[in-house]
């Protein structure tokens, strides 16, 4: 293996002016990615950022790597081709809730199901920003937007639930207000062999300001967020005085020392479990009953689509008598006239 140059953040800053609105959560995600890339041991020329359409999908222009700004909803499909064409590449999909949950919903579930080895960053601001404020598939029920002046009448998706339904092997959640955690989570996503989905709760300052405020606000976040880590107790609250327990098929939030709950009752996070039932329960936790989970919720290691494809090719190559086109076109029934 050749030595990989020690990169810094600057190596990944492109010469393009970043054109997001002042105060957009995307800036923080961009900085976190640029801080992540020097630490994942991948050569700069092996990085490819692929996106669809939307504010977040402008991302590839701002990272000085290979990049492909695709069409609406199709980032996952384009990225699949990039990865399969050259499995050595580290492929990053940058997409929003409209791009991935609506027009690109089909590609979203299938790339997770196949477990292609890519990193998928889903910017969830619960609104269409680039088209100026229409509701998206993740907009809360009843919210008034440009296209729902009397409130939406659609039940929203939770991306994590979809990911579990699609048998995704990696799901994490981060918030745009915590770059340090975001970077830790991105590094975990990069390390995972398989489709790594990271949902970033991101604020759209213009069209959906403060949509995640309850979760991210400095005052409430200790009680409303739980940062879970593999092998550790699921604790939250300002003094880690609260925790999660499982009762029947439900997760319950408890205070240690109250109602007879002790530290021993608190769940220990197993992100690596093959069964995704617990990950599903964690991914769907929502306010006000339960804190919202951030961190790596699931990281189950299994074979990837791209590895199996390469394996099948080398396996067949070892067995087949057909070594080139000349062999093939002269094989089977041929006739001398």
């Amino acid at each position, binding site marked *: 293996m050749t030595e990989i140059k020690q990169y810094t953040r600057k190596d990944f800053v492109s010469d393009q002016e970043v054109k997001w609105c002042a105060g957009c959560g995307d800036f923080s995600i961009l900085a976190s990615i640029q801080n992540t890339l020097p630490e994942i041991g991948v050569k700069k020329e*092996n990085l490819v950022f692929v996106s669809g359409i939307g504010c977040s999908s402008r991302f590839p222009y701002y990272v000085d790597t290979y990049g492909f700004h695709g069409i609406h909803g199709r980032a996952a499909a384009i990225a699949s*081709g990039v990865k399969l064409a050259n499995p050595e590449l580290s492929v990053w999909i940058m997409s929003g809730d409209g791009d991935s949950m609506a027009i690109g919903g089909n590609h979203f579930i299938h790339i997770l199901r196949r477990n292609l080895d890519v990193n998928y960053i889903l910017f969830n601001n619960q609104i269409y920003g680039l088209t100026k404020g229409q509701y998206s598939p993740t907009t809360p029920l009843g919210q008034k937007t440009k296209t729902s002046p009397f409130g939406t009448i659609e039940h929203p998706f939770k991306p994590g639930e979809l990911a579990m339904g699609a048998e995704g092997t990696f799901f994490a959640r981060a918030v745009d207000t915590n770059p340090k955690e975001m970077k830790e989570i991105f590094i975990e996503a990069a390390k995972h062999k398989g489709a790594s989905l990271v949902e970033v709760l991101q604020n759209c300052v213009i069209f959906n300001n403060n949509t995640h405020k309850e979760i991210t606000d400095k005052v409430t976040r200790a009680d409303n967020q739980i940062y879970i880590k593999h092998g550790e107790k699921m604790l939250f609250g300002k003094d880690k005085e609260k925790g999660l327990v499982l009762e029947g098929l439900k997760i319950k939030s408890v205070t240690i020392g109250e109602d007879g709950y002790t530290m021993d009752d608190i769940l220990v996070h197993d992100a690596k479990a093959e069964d995704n039932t617990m990950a599903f329960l964690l991914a769907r936790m929502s306010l006000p009953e339960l804190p919202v989970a951030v961190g790596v919720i699931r990281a189950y290691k299994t074979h990837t689509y791209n590895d199996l494809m390469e394996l099948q090719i080398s396996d067949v190559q070892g067995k087949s008598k057909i070594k080139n086109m000349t062999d093939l076109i002269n094989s089977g029934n*041929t006739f001398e006239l």
Partner: protein
Amino acid sequence: MATNNKKIEVERIVIKFAGDSGDGMQLSGTQFSDVAAILGNDLATFPDFPSEIRAPQGTIAGVSGFQVHIGHADINTSGDMADVLVALNPAALEYNLKHVKPGGTIVLDSDSFNAKAFKKAKLTTNRLEDGSLDGFIVVEAPVTTQCRLTLKETGLDSKTIDKTRNQFITGLLAYMFNRDIKLSEDFITSKFAKKPSIADANIKILRAGYNFADTIEVLSTTYIVLPNENKSGKYRNIMGNTATAWGLMAAAEKSGLNFFLGSYPITPATEILAELSKHKSLNIKTFQAEDEIAGINSAIGAAYAGNLAVTTTSGPGLSLKSEALGLACITELPLVIVNVMRGGPSTGLPTKTEQTDLLQSLWGRNGEAPIPVIAASSPADCFDYAYAATKMAVEHMTPVILHTDSYLGNGSGLWKIPNMDDMPSITPKIAKANADYLPFERDENFVRTWAWPGTEGNEHRVGGLEKLDGKGSVSHDPENHALMTTLRAAKIDKIADSYPAQHVYGDQEGDLLIVGWGSSHGVLYDAFSEVKENSDAKIGFTNFNYIFPLPNDTADIFKKYKRILVCELNSGQFANHLRYSLPEFDYEKYNKIEAQPFMVSELKDKFNEILEAK
């Protein structure tokens, strides 16, 4: 072999096999044509099957057919009317009777002509008794009974036994065409290599059919089709869809590029995906995507990453891929889109043939998005045009649409096996590492350089937004957009400089130029040749494979004729394209919109009508 019959040498003969889907008619047809090839005959085949896998048994909707045209003469089509019709049930006879030549031979399973079968086929009359078959030579063979009797001792169940009926017919035809029965036996042995008991049963039935024909007196005449002497060398019988797959693979090998197919199953293109997926040993990567859109977008991603990328589809799928075609156009990435045309619009007639996607392929995109369009013209030359499409795509950094159709894709013909060393070179322009790379810097043909991820120092971004000339950053500048639009068009126009000369058969100037495109080459050629032989008029025929851009010599050809007749299987799409591209000429049209190939006879009538009217 019987001695009491008379043997006649024939130049060419058309045989139609027809029965229920499931009766093995496709297999019998393939077997008959493979043996013809071994005997040195030229040939063309065309299956005609319902879109349902198992339409209700015995109904007319469930009739599956396979037509074979073999000859001592050169064979350019699968034939008009059948000289011999094999009909395994009343529905098959009913559906095909009008396609049998007067005086032709009809071989049928007389056991299947009963009240129950008439009811299934919704027939009110028995064709065997109502005089409909007067003027034909009718061979009534009790096929079902004979098969059951022959295999009585084997212990096979009657369902399995009935499945051997097609071999009884094959045996009968082997006698009728004076063929060595051993060749048909070899076919069975190899087909059922893993099921020796089934192979034995089929061979018994094959011989029973042969012996039956030898015994009955109705076959007073048998036929001999001598080998074709115009063709020499090593050949194989190849289906168009297979030839397309192989042409793409051959181009990958020649260019040294890794191959990627992103595709989604669709009739009648699926066989290309299936064929390519067999060839892992040649490092062929196939990705069966979740939909047509993912098929083309994954291929675009693979093209960006440096693979020879292909997507395959049929009309409805091409519609779904439209937006992504624009993306391939503006990112100027090489991509081959194979469109196996079928009857439309919408789901239309999925298993039938038409040339109705031409205007969609030329114009079916938002913005100004010129994409070269080429078309194959025989099952065998699908190989050549798939190869040509690939060469064009990678050497000119553009998506290319290759049209074949159901007739070519499912039809077969003899293909002369090429020497791979003789195939033209394919030379992509690939950026070397640290090349001070500018994504939209162009050469003298307006072609940009391809830089692959993984190459140091050439990091760059492409995408669907308009890009600045040269540097390739996002640009909304009005003058730059005008320049880029012009450059993209100029790049495509320039491709015509690389074409071979457009070939004109017959008179190089004169009264009438017959014009076709793509798959009607063979049938137009036969009709043209026959009319020309019996006419004093000066007639030429030219068939276009390069549709857009048109060959540079098109106008020079057209101006040498008084009249131009454009024949196509649609309402006049190529004629419209010619009117738009070369408005200085008058174009007459001859169109067929029955989702069936042209017949030589109808074309001859039309040509003669025009020549007489002058």
